Structure formats: C-alpha cells, structure tokens
C-alpha cells in the first residue's frame, strides 16, 4: 500500500504526533446521551483500539467522527482541520474512510464495481488499477472474486471487500468498526493480519472492536469506553495485564 492519493497531499502531522484529536465530544440522539464528553487522540501511524461493552458508545464515536451523526458539543480535529462543519460525503476527500459496522457493501454490484466506487473521490483510472493490485495482494480472496456479485460473498469476504473498498480511496486514516463481527475465526485472523500490514504501510487506524483480546493484541494503545465515557486508557500491553480489564472483558 505505497501509492499516494493522486490529488491530496499527505497529512502535515509528523509520525508519532496526533493526526486525529477528539476533544470533550458529546453526542445525543433519540433523547439519549450516547457520548458524555470523551477525549482521545490517534497519532500518525498508530493503531488505536476502542473497546467496551455493547452500547458503550464505540460505534457512535466512529459514526460521529465520520460525520454521520451530529455533534452536540466538543471538537473533532483531523490534521489541524475542524471536522465539525464537514459532511459525511466530503470526509473521504480529507483522507478519512470509515468501514462501517455490518460492512455496508453494495450487494447488487459486482466486487469490482464495489471497489471502483471506493475510488469515487479521485476516479483516476491508473490509481484504481494500481490500488486494486495492492488490495488483491492484501486479500487474495477478493482478487479471485472480482467479477462475482458482492452479495454472494461470505461474511468474512464481505468484510475484506469493505476494507478493500475503503482503501481504494487512498485514505491516510482508516476507521474500522467491528471488523470481526459475525465472521469465521479463521478469516478473522486473516483480516487482522491485513489490518496490521495496512498500518505498517503508513495508514493510521482507529479500531472499534468487541473482541478485546484481538483488539489489544493488534493495537499499540487503547481506550476503554463505558456508558459513553472513557473509563481507562493506556498502552494495549498494560491494559491486557490489567486485572480489572481481565475480569470485565477478557473472561478472567
């Protein structure tokens, strides 16, 4: 994954300095306060995980960063720019792509058409061809099925397609929402290995995951969400050894 975006410069943030900063973010919808002022940051080049129980606000956080949900208060800053007034449609032009929970592939389109739509923000033929080759190296199963209608793929393959489609936009930052949800364990390992390789190549990743063990294994740092607030944060290794985390999320 070495090809740069054809018409967007690389992020200004240096490696190891914050690329995404979320400051005191509160979100309510349907009369419920889903997020009660959370702050987090993701440095350029890192994999950062958000873990927590169902309904803790993990997906809400990602959807709000992706501008699918309105902000009640607080700030989201990406590479020195305020994302508050940005629409979900234009976020991809900033270099941020969300792989949504439930994958959100287009089942009526072929795998290749799904990939091409991922490149909507540049539509550059040569970049599409190159990125498709890169993506196929990452997910060989996708390469074997480019002509297939996407709805016929297995759950794991659909998740691979969803990540591959997001990569087609040449993002500098990837937001991943529950990539292991409802997927055969063998494919989950493949997917996480691919995520690690994407990060190695320089794409910054914010990962939401219910599978705490996996999330802590693959991330450098993690935030623990509990009922819309950040309960704990730190290095993933330390958190994995933390007694409270072990008891609550790792089954003792």
């Amino acid at each position, binding site marked *: 994954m070495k090809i740069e975006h054809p018409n967007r410069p690389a992020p200004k943030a240096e490696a190891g300095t914050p690329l995404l900063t979320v400051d005191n973010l509160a979100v309510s919808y349907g009369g419920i306060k889903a997020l009660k002022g959370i702050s987090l940051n993701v440095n350029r080049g890192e994999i950062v995980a958000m873990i927590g129980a169902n309904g803790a606000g993990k997906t809400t956080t990602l959807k709000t960063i992706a501008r699918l949900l309105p902000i009640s208060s607080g700030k989201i800053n990406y590479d020195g720019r305020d994302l508050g007034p940005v629409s979900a449609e234009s*976020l991809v032009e900033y270099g941020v792509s969300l792989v949504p929970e439930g994958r959100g592939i287009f089942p009526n*389109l072929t795998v290749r058409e799904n990939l091409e739509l991922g490149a909507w923000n540049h539509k550059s033929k040569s970049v599409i061809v190159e990125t498709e080759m890169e993506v196929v190296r990452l997910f060989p199963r996708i390469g074997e099925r480019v002509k297939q209608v996407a709805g016929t793929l297995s759950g794991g393959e659909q998740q691979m397609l969803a990540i591959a489609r997001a990569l087609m936009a040449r993002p500098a930052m990837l937001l991943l929402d529950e990539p292991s949800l409802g997927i055969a364990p063998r494919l989950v390992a493949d997917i996480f290995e691919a995520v690690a390789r994407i990060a190695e190549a320089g794409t910054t990743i914010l990962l939401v995951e219910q599978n705490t063990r996996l999330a802590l294994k693959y991330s450098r740092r993690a935030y623990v969400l509990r009922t819309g607030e950040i309960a704990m944060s730190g290095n993933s290794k330390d958190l994995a050894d933390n007694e409270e985390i072990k008891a609550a999320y790792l089954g003792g």
Partner: protein
Amino acid sequence: MKILNAIIAGVAQGSMIALVSLGYTMVYGILKLINFAHSEVFMMGAFFGLFLTVGFGLDTSPMFAGVAGTLAAMVLAGLLGALVEKVAYAPLRARSGGRSNTNTRITPLVTALGMSVLLQNLAQLLFTARYRSYPQLLPIENARTIVFVVAVVVMIALQFLVYGTWFGKAMRAVSVNVEAARLMGIRTGRVISMTFVTGSMLAALGGILYCLSQSQVYPTMGVVIGTRSFVAAVIGGIGSIPGAVLGGVLIGVIGELTKLTPYSGLQDVIIFTVLIVVLLVRPSGLLGKAGIEKV
C-alpha cells in the same frame, strides 16, 4: 395478418409506454417511492413539445423544429422533475433523517399524489382544458417505426448509463445503501436529482412520441397513460429496468389486440386483470426480485 399487424402496432405503442414506466421504476428503485407526479411530467413534457416545436418554426423546417423542440422539451421536463423532487420530496427526506418507518413511506406517497393533482390543475390553468392538436410531423404509417426505433435507441442508451458509467454505479449503490454511498463520497442528493431528471426526460420523450401517433394534447392525458405506464412498471417488477420495458410492451400489445375484438372499450379492464393475475402469481412482478425487503 391482422393479428401480426396489431402486435407490431402494440410493440410500438408499448415501447412508448415503457419510456414512461422507466421513470416510475428508476425513482422507485432509488427512493422506494411511487412518484405519482411522474404522469403529469409526461403530460407537461407533451405540452412543452407542442409549444417548442411550433416555436422553433414548424413552417420553415418541420424536421429541425420537431427534433429541436423534442430535445428542448426533454430538458424542460427534466428540470421540472428535479424541481418536484427538490420542492416536495427532498424536504421530507431531510426531516426523516434517514430513519425508515411507516411515516417515512406514507408521507412522501401522499405528497406525490398531491403534486400530481397540483401539476394537473396548473396545466389546466396555464394551457386551458381544451384538446389541442399536435402538429403531424410524420406520415402516420412511419410514426410507428419512428416511435419504436427511438424507444429502442433510448433504452440501449439508458442501459449504458446505468451499467457503464460512474453515475449509473452511484445510482445502483444509493438504491441499496444510502449511508455507505455517502461514505464513498457520493453526493446522494445529486444522484437522486439526476435520477428524476433522467426519468422525466424519458417521460417527455414518451409524451411527444405518444402525441405523434395520437395527435392530441390535453391536461388530463397523464391520467390514462400515466396509470398504464405505472401498471406496466408493476407488472414488469417495479425497480427493474428491463421489467419496465417488458411490462410496457406487454400492455401495448394487449391494448392493440383488444382493439381487434368487439370489446375495445375494455382495454383497461383487461390490463388491470393481467396486473392482478401477475401479482397473484408473482407478487414482485415478472422480472422483479423476490425477497424480503430489509428495513
């Protein structure tokens, strides 16, 4: 021989109906909305065609006036369709905020009926209710061939638009998952507008072709042809583009065959009977995708 002739005439008539059906089916495909105002865009398109063809100078060069008038009328009808969407449907979508429940289905449907009545009355106000004769640009025996050829060419072009272009890909993506389409960077509002523009342009073309063979324009013409086109879209499987074409041709042929019998007045009765039978046997239409719709 009589039957063969009737079938040929029916296919021509049906391809005209199919052009109008396509607008219903495309809008339904993308918004799950039955755009009842579509039949009035068809009627308005026919009026635009009449005025513009005369305006472009019917006496000096009828061929140029006919073609230019038709193209200009299609553009105007396209704008009208987009306007209807902007004024009536887009605000409802914005208010429902992407959530789907009974109200987000019923409210646009009733609004669509309202827009239909509004446009029909507007036409009576602007153009009066009288029947106007459409200039006979083509000898009647050629009209059928022209209608058929134009319809086929347009349908091939539409097939290319939907399956061979970025816009078509975006349209099909928006029709299954608006949120995911937005994440790709697709301006979904623009795609929806363009769908209305395309459907409305086809309706105007259908309206003008209809007038070329029937030679009359009047404000309630959308009711009869609009209903038949809508039924064609449902018979073929609403949301399916080939389905709309098949349904249109089927209705055209049924109509012409009925005229051979002493019961030509029963054309619509037969059409609706076919509709009921098709829906009993295949509830999603002839080419419609069976399956549970996810909400």
